[in-house]
């Protein structure tokens, strides 16, 4: 086992402002960035604010930007850096800071509420659902999402454009629309809800210009752009260019609006 001392710069402050603070701190074999942040907390800055839960990449709490790149602190091993590199840890840039590394991610919870929920088929009771593995594979991929919001943080549509936040749900929640749309038993259509159309019309799919930055930062390796956004776009386009379908879906949707 070999220990060494690493140089860290950690952003400290709150809504009123703040800056990078320097720390010299011990690092041991096999440690991840979150371990080092915890060591700083336990020995040098007891009030350093940071979110975490599982320490195993399962809960999506410990999101931050490490040397400018959105990552999970608990899954970023110290061995990916050289020993003389200074490691800079800053809060997610797309969301308002609360304190130190903790940001206000309320935007995401608000967007989650705007996506209409799963609609159970009226004719099937509990225990009667039959679905084949190959038909649930696609939605299951999207349900691996741990809601770390790194994709939301990285997407340029909102990263530096606060004004787009009202109209744009972000990759995570566009993917949620795709997930429900691809659910083999979702009965949204029977209630007059056309999920594909809403992706375009209500959740801002049009803002996405398929740069794939979201997919690149996703710690779950979900193919957000290729498997969720592009298919959603293709089908939204199909609908749009078929005037009858488009009209039909508009008319059927009315009764549930409001």
């Amino acid at each position: 086992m070999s220990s060494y001392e690493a140089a860290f710069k950690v952003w400290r402050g709150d809504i009123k402002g703040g800056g990078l603070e320097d720390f010299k701190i011990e690092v041991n074999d096999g440690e991840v960035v979150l371990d080092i942040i915890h060591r700083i907390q336990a020995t040098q800055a007891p009030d350093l604010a940071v979110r975490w839960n599982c320490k195993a990449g399962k809960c999506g709490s410990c999101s931050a930007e490490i040397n400018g790149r959105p990552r999970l602190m608990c899954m970023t091993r110290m061995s990916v850096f050289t020993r003389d590199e200074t490691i800079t840890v800053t809060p997610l840039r797309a969301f308002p800071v609360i304190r130190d590394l903790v940001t206000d991610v309320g935007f995401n919870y608000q967007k989650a509420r705007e996506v209409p929920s799963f609609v159970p088929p009226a004719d099937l009771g509990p225990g009667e659902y039959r679905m084949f593995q190959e038909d649930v594979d696609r939605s299951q991929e999207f349900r691996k999402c741990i809601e770390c919001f790194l994709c939301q943080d990285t997407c340029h549509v909102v990263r530096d454009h606060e004004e787009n936040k009202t109209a744009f749900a972000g990759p995570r929640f566009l993917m949620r629309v795709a997930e429900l749309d691809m659910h083999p038993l979702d009965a949204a259509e029977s209630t007059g809800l056309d999920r594909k159309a809403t992706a375009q019309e209500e959740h801002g799919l049009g803002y996405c210009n398929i740069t794939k930055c979201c997919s690149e930062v996703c710690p779950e390796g979900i193919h957000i752009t290729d498997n969720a956004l592009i298919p959603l776009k293709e089908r939204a386009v199909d609908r749009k260019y078929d005037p009858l379908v488009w009209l039909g879906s508009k008319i059927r949707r009315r009764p549930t609006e409001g």
Partner: protein
Amino acid sequence: MSVVDRQDWDVVVVGAGGAGLRAAIEARERGARTAVICKSLFGKAHTVMAEGGIAAAMGNVNSGDNWEVHFRDTMRGGKFLNQWRMAELHANEAPDRVWELETWGALFDRTKDGRISQRNFGGHEYPRLAHVGDRTGLELIRTLQQKIVSLQQEDFRETGDYESRLKVFQECTVTRVLKDGDKVSGVFGYERESGRFFVLEAPAVVIATGGIGKSFKVTSNSWEYTGDGHALALLAGAPLLNMEFVQFHPTGMVWPPSVKGILVTESVRGDGGVLRNSEGKRFMFDYIPDVFKEKYAQSEEEGDRWYEDPDHNRRPPELLPRDEVARAINSEVKAGRGSPHGGVFLDVSTRMPAEVIRRRLPSMYHQFKELADVDITAEAMEVGPTCHYVMGGIAVESDTAAARGVPGLFAAGEVAGGMHGSNRLGGNSLSDLLVFGRRAGWHAAEYAAGLTDTRPPVDEDQIDTAAAEALRPFSAEGPAPGADDGRPPENPYTLHQELQQAMNDLVGIIRREGEMERALEKLADLRVRARRAGVEGHRQFNPGWHLSLDLRNMLLVSECVARAALERTESRGGHTREDHPAMDRKWRNVNLLCALTDPTGGLLATDPVSGQITLTREITEPIRADLLALFEKEELVKYLAEEELYE
């Protein structure tokens, strides 16, 4: 009078894991205005980490399965100490609770004919665990979270406000349950973000705060597991049941040190993984206890055949209940046959093709690759026991989930005791959360509805006391009680580390009388020091402050574990005494109850040396005859005392 934000609700649920969310859904659907409070963000509770699956006798893979078989397995796993009515309700209702999740949008892995697939797990006679790869907890919590959102959308359509009937207060910590006489009147807590205090007034409170693992050094549990709900109940005057039973999961990661304790799911063994010592031997064959001799394979060949042909072969001993496997690993390491970093080897690489491993165990593959540089498709993992789950908990009525002795208080999930007896089977927790979460929400809503005109008022003094207690860490400078010098404030992180070390070393997987006595002394010392835990900075998102407040809970709960463990002079399930190595039938029907010595709930008044907890014994209700009749007589004689058998 302290200035605090105050709101009125019908039911307050403390905890947003599987149990809390299921309770909240039920209470709201039964018409109660319901508030949920949780320490982390919504959707991040511990339940999200559950991997292997949720146990329910749906019989999708083996039609021989039914609730009676599940009940039997649960009782065997718990060594017959389970609150049998809970085990019965659980086995009976679990399938409905799983199917219901599908109607809320859950997508479990499927069988060939399109049903929910079920996998094998330790102690379960048939493939019984519904699962989604090895991320079942994520599916469960996301489904409940999305169900809550769908109810909020419904409320929005009707009232124009998403939160009019069901609201989640995230990143808030409850520090006290408030009471009017013996009845619950609400909760007191603080917002983590701002440090502001708040009171939610409500006649019914459901505690669903999960476990206590953060009192131990090596654990699979997160920072949330500081035993808050256990302590809240104690302080409110409700007793805790059988706190000596703590589950050490046999397979936690052992290397590198920073991930020591992180869980390696039991599905690795359920799907064919085997345990070997440094000599390459599958040592579990040497550790099959007498009570299980007829149920497990006697040779490797038979064990291997079982995966393909379970009707004509017996299961391999790697799938014994967790307490057995954890003890076996402990013995192998002690005997010098451990792996380089003090564990044993868990191998799937020689048992399945690489692509099958990656498909069936994706997050294990990922976890070892990312955190330990180990490719589990090519080499064995190193694993060892890790503190995982607490079977003990708030003593509740089986049918209603009502906490004993405190009207208006309910408890469900890991924080409730009884259901799992002395040892929990894998997969039985997630189903427990849903079955008893629902029951708690139901009965809390009903109780609250019965009190519409006569709500217990909140006592201002209690609010002031709670606020003063919460603020103490900011002014921790005075001398310790009994000491004449003015020692400087204690660092809460240091106190926490000492507590974890003490519990790990002295009340851990193998227990001895002298060590537990030393643990109690250490706890008394820490208790005095913890009153002086001091913090810097201000109240806004200050983890040092939060930890200082959590210490009260960890110390209370640790004392319960240590006292009960010292009292129970036998080994059973998650309680192993080196000085009393055998299970003793005389203890089969004995519950140990922990209550606060000073029932006024004032902690300062408690003597720092003798402790804060009083222990009492209670004889359990005899198991109902028709349930006993589900077992063979030859099996019952191994567990039940003579008198019990002839009743």
